[in-house]
């Protein structure tokens, strides 16, 4: 037993493990370091160091009653728990807990699809159901429903949702929290609670109406630590008859503003799915004169280079779900809308496919548009098809086999959904790079926003990237960690907050949201202390520390 939960003696922890074994079965209490290994963050910046966020043990309950038993035992001995569904969220810490020595509650054995109603477009699942599982369930039962999947299909519907994961189809579905409807939760005292209509005994509308009556606490469980969610309802998108794409390009840098306005309009009328913005000017960065103009945000000069090269400055791929006729009418409407404000916009028809599409259609090598294209991965997820592609980011790459990136972190700032806000963020992020790495050259003026969420943009500072680079030595990783913390602080000073973070950086991101002397965090921690007085559930998750462990806030800052 190499690691103990904080504040728990070896003797007591031995008793805890025995009681866990009695509750879930001996083979499902995991203490051997070789078996604990998968519960670490494979890409941690603190890997193999004394303060790496590793659990002391893992316990795998198979039922709600077993989860309740585990929670009650933990409460008696004040053992911190950290619950995971599939624990595959590797850009955000994977299965690693916020507090070293926590006991991981691995819910993978609870992996039943409890209900799918094809006519009401709803499902009820257990925590261990992955996107792959759900997709296969729909396929096997020939149900005309779609999932909105995470990038890698081994993610869990529930875990991704509780981390506020996002997707790629229509807005109400790709905001996974928004698509959830009804939860069953084991509270820190072991009691079972249902939210929404689930609180009404014998209700037949649990997955239809999420609110029920009175305050709805379901939001507390996303990026929170107020309970262990053991069932969750979802609204699923009905399989449309047809899918169509179209690409719109606009010639000048400032045309981005009316382009965003038009896309927002169609988005909020629920006419289009996730739009994909990009800039066709990326290849011009090899031209020193253009690069200089892009670095200086010299818009007139950038426009001059764009015109001279015959390229447009921005483009957006739109996707339409519906019937063949409605998707065509909506695509024609989108063209009409953009030409009202940008008369010299170009419009290219893309795919027009009967749904569900075949894998061969998804993999079709012939692209209907000018570059840059949607990736094959994106073409899959737009159709709710989960994949297990070998990752491009972490690890050695085929193109550069001697480059080994050992760390992998997703950091994306929330940006207002307007062209002006994107332009400001581009300048802010370039300024952050200039201040963090004096002398470094980073062109951010072509960085497009990501619209995973219906009503907000996300922008990653790609200089620091989702995969951090450079020095893989322990000291090098610590330097990268410090640098990222500095970046998060600077982002906040410019008004940009991150939407997700791995446990290692959650205190730093929580620090960004500091209005009125951290009134939000103080409110959350007041609730936490009332609901979880022993502070046993996921201490530190979302930056919320219970009184018992509050002194540990920021303790990992080196």
């Amino acid at each position: 037993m190499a690691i103990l939960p904080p504040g728990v003696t070896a003797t007591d922890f031995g008793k805890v493990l025995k009681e866990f074994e009695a509750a879930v079965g001996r083979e499902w209490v995991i203490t051997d370091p070789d078996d604990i290994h998968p519960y670490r963050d494979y890409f941690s910046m603190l890997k193999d160091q004394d303060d790496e966020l590793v659990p002391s043990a893992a316990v795998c309950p198979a039922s709600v009653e077993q989860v309740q038993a585990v929670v009650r035992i933990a409460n008696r001995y004040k053992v911190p728990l950290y619950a995971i569904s599939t624990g595959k969220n590797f850009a955000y810490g994977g299965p690693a807990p916020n507090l070293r020595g926590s006991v991981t509650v691995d819910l993978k054995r609870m992996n039943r699809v409890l209900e799918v109603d094809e006519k009401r477009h709803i499902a009820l699942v257990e925590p261990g159901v992955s996107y792959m599982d759900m997709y296969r369930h729909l396929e096997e039962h020939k149900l005309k429903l779609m999932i909105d999947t995470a990038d890698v299909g081994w993610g869990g519907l529930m875990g991704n949702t509780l981390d506020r994961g996002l997707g790629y189809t229509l807005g109400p579905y790709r905001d996974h929290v928004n698509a959830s409807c009804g939860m069953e939760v084991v509270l820190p005292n072991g009691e079972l609670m249902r939210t929404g209509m689930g609180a009404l005994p014998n209700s037949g509308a649990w997955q239809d109406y999420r609110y029920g009556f009175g305050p709805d606490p379901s939001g507390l469980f996303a990026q929170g630590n107020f309970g262990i969610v053991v069932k969750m309802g979802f609204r699923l998108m009905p399989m449309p008859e047809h899918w169509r794409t179209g690409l719109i390009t606009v010639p000048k840098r400032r045309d981005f503003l009316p382009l965003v306005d038009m896309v927002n309009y169609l988005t909020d009328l629920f006419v289009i799915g996730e739009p994909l913005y990009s800039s066709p000017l990326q290849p011009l960065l090899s031209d020193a004169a253009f690069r200089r103009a892009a670095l200086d945000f010299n818009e007139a000069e950038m426009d001059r280079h764009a015109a001279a090269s015959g390229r447009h400055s921005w483009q957006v791929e739109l996707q339409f779900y519906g019937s063949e006729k409605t998707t065509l009418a909506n695509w024609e409407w989108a063209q009409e809308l953009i030409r009202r404000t940008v008369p010299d916009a170009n419009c290219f028809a893309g795919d027009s496919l009967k749904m569900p599409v075949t894998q061969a259609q998804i993999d079709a090598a012939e692209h209907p548009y000018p570059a840059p294209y949607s990736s094959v991965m994106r073409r899959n997820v737009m159709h709710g098809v989960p994949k297990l592609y070998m990752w491009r980011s972490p690890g050695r790459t085929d193109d550069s086999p001697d480059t080994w990136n050992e760390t992998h972190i997703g950091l994306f700032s929330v940006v207002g959904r307007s062209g002006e806000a994107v332009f400001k963020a581009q300048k802010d992020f370039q300024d952050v790079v200039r201040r963090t790495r004096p002398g470094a050259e980073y062109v951010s003026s072509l960085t497009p926003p990501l619209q995973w969420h219906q009503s907000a943009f996300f922008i990653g500072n790609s200089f620091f990237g989702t995969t951090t680079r450079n020095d893989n030595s322990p000291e090098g990783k610590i330097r990268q960690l410090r640098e990222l913390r500095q970046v998060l602080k600077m982002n906040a000073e410019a008004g940009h907050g991150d939407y997700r973070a791995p446990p290692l950086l959650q205190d730093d991101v929580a620090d960004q949201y500091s209005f009125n002397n951290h009134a939000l965090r103080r409110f959350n921690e007041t609730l936490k202390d009332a609901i979880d007085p022993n502070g046993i559930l996921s201490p530190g998750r979302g930056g919320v520390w219970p009184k018992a462990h509050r002194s540990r806030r920021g303790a990992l800052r080196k």
Partner: protein
Amino acid sequence: MPHVPAVLIVDERFDAARRLASLAAPGVPRVALPRDVFDLWHGRLEEVCRSGDRAIAGVTTERGFFLLQTLAAEYRLRVLSSSAHTGSLVSWVLGPG
């Protein structure tokens, strides 16, 4: 080798992987690592791992190793051995501890 692997997964894009594979586990059924592991995992490997008493082996890149190691861990398969080779390749065996 305490556990004879039920299958040997080879990243056949690399000549070196094919060579290493033929040396490492002659006679073991060989399967090419596809770009997307979804069908291979659900169609073949998951069943092997679920059995709890069989090993799988491979010669892949680090990324392929990570992917399969993570999937196999769901069934408590451990890394029994792994060796890095030049050209980004790793030969490995996953099996019950």
